[in-house]
């Protein structure tokens, strides 16, 4: 009689439908696959940086004798060495260190918001989301300063096409080959756009948390999804930091 009843024994067909083989919701899975595709985009950009850097001569002399020139790829320590209020002081990596710390910190506050969401603690989610948003805004402001610093250039400048040129744009670049500035603006700009859209998404979710949308739906999964995106932005920065500033 019950020959066609559904078997409830141990052998469940995982991919036969009716169960979640990944044990994750549709939205979360799609966020993962979107991030995977974004990984390819950022990898292509960073690998292009590597390719163009490898196809340009490297500086071979002593570091203390280094000057900016169109002939070779610049040493990052010499380019990114300023911090606000300390004009003209050589402080390599300090400012980008602050930026890295801000982004890691905002990743931590994001994961704390996700954890609070698991406990359905609206006040905690609200608090940590707000810190994450502030961290994102602080990072964007730092990046604006960094760009301004690079665009306006040093007082001495360097010789570009027979003339002294200060700073960098997409065509001319006092620090080295024009491709160096092009790649810097393009890659950090693309990352900054991701941070900006992450901040906007966080603000939307923060608003929803504040008005109690997720208390009504009964779960805080949206916080987890924007959390995934936010951590990805942090992850990309880890790579940008290594390839642009360290190596």
């Amino acid at each position, binding site marked *: 009689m019950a020959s066609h009843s559904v078997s409830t024994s141990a052998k469940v067909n995982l991919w036969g439908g009716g169960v979640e*083989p*990944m*044990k*994750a919701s549709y939205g979360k*899975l799609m966020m*993962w696959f979107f991030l*995977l595709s974004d*990984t*390819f985009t950022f*990898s*292509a950009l960073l*690998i*292009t940086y*590597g*390719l*163009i*850097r*490898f*196809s*340009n*001569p490297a500086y071979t002399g002593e*570091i203390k004798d280094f000057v900016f020139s169109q002939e070779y790829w610049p040493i990052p*320590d010499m380019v990114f060495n300023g911090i606000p209020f300390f004009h003209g002081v050589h402080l*390599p*990596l300090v400012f980008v*260190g602050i930026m*890295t*710390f801000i982004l*890691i910190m905002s*990743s*931590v506050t*994001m*994961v*704390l918001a996700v*954890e*609070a969401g698991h*406990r*359905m*603690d609206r006040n*905690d989610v609200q608090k940590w989301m707000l810190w994450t948003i502030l961290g994102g805004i602080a990072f964007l402001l730092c990046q604006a300063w960094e760009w301004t610093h690079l665009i306006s250039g040093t007082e001495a400048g360097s010789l570009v096409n027979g003339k002294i040129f200060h700073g960098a744009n997409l065509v001319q670049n006092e620090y080295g080959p024009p491709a160096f500035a092009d790649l810097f603006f393009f890659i950090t700009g693309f990352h900054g756009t991701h941070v900006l859209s992450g901040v906007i998404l966080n603000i939307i979710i923060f608003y929803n948390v504040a008005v109690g949308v997720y208390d009504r739906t009964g779960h805080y999964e949206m916080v987890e999804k924007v*959390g*995934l995106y936010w*951590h*990805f932005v*942090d*992850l990309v920065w*880890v*790579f940008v930091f*290594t390839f642009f500033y*360290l*190596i």
Partner: protein
Amino acid sequence: MGNTHAAQPGELPKANTKAIWRTFWILLGVTALEFLIAFTSHNKMFRISTFLILTLVKAFFIVAEFMHLKHEVKALILSVLIPVLFIVWLVIALMVEGDSILVVR
């Protein structure tokens, strides 16, 4: 009944953030180590290889702990990680290409 650890109705369970802060300290420590090497070592090969390894260490902790991938089912972990192999191929292919462009120029 009163001695159970489960939250009472209307009372929120306690935060469990130990693993999160542990990951934070690891990330901060690795970044500090990178700075130390950036300021002290001038050996180019050593610098580049250490920076790459430490970057991958940081990436592992962000993806595994913050993005929670370590605690997902195996099928999800593999479907995210296997496509990344294409990137490894692209890195090798284009670095070799860049080198030979320099030689040809």
